[in-house]
């Protein structure tokens, strides 16, 4: 997996900052989920906290990988452009990002099905990750698997909104719909740079909505 997507050159750096912002927001959500878990000792907040922690770590890794690419490209442009060295240097980081993000979404999807079965969780985690690692084209597969998981999660939040019909549940539903559409844009970003930018802005919208909901909950 050479690189995640085609990235327009002017967007270099902005994507690193956005991913860092996503990492921090998801880390804050994870922190509060663990606080709720500490208060209630229930498993759903624990799983929610774990899933957001994994997603946060994935964004930290992705941000670092993209930052490293920029640094490496700048160095190589000064000498001779060696894209191969960029690929080698970042392959491990990109795989780490993909696995952490998928693991985060699987944990979130597992939380929504309300089944307490560690063997099932292990199975859900293992199959997609092994398929990703063995696939000749893991990038497309990663975006497709994460899109399927996000559809599943978005349906859960749609049901949650229908059940409660509150502005806060609508915020979270919209956030996960944005994440889903953002992810679908990333599928096309492999060939078109513009989709990479749109995907990032949809993700930004999603995480800002999640952060807004968290602030509303804490402030009340």
């Amino acid at each position, binding site marked *: 997996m050479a690189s995640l997507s085609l990235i327009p050159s002017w967007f270099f750096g902005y994507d690193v900052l956005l991913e860092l912002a996503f990492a921090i927001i998801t880390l804050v959500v994870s922190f509060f989920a663990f606080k709720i878990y500490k*208060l209630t000792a229930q498993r*759903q907040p624990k799983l929610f906290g774990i899933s957001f922690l994994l997603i946060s770590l994935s964004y930290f890794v992705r941000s670092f990988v993209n930052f490293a690419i920029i640094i490496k490209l700048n160095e190589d442009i000064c000498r001779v452009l060696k894209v191969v060295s960029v690929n080698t240097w970042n392959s491990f980081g990109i795989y780490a990002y993909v696995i952490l993000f998928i693991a985060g979404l699987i944990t979130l999807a597992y939380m929504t099905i309300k089944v307490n079965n560690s063997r099932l969780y292990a199975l859900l985690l293992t199959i997609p990750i092994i398929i990703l690692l063995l696939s000749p084209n893991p990038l497309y597969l990663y975006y497709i698997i994460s899109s399927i998981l996000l559809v599943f999660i978005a349906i859960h939040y749609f049901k949650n909104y229908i059940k409660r019909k509150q502005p806060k549940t609508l915020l979270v539903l919209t956030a996960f719909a944005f994440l889903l559409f953002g992810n679908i844009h990333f599928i096309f970003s492999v060939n078109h740079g513009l989709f990479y930018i749109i995907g990032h802005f949809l993700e930004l919208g999603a995480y800002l909505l999640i952060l807004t909901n968290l602030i509303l909950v804490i402030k009340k």
Partner: protein
Amino acid sequence: MNIKRDRLQIIHDILKVIRDKNGTIKPTHILYKANLSHQMLDEYLNDLISRKFVVENIEKKGKTYSLTDKGFNYLSKYNLITDFIGSFGLDMD
């Protein structure tokens, strides 16, 4: 109460009943004030004891239950808990 109570709300009701009795109460009082069956009460009290929300005191007159700091903390943050759980779709059981 018309609406079926969820697990968090039942825990809240039990802890509130204990708090309203100055932090210590007999099981029979919890039974009717929290509107629970005997089986449910046993189940919930065992759960709350194992999670250190409540402690059981065995005295000459019988058993009483007291709130721990963790139990008081749960009550004070109940609105935050339900709001977080409700908005992020973390329904209990």
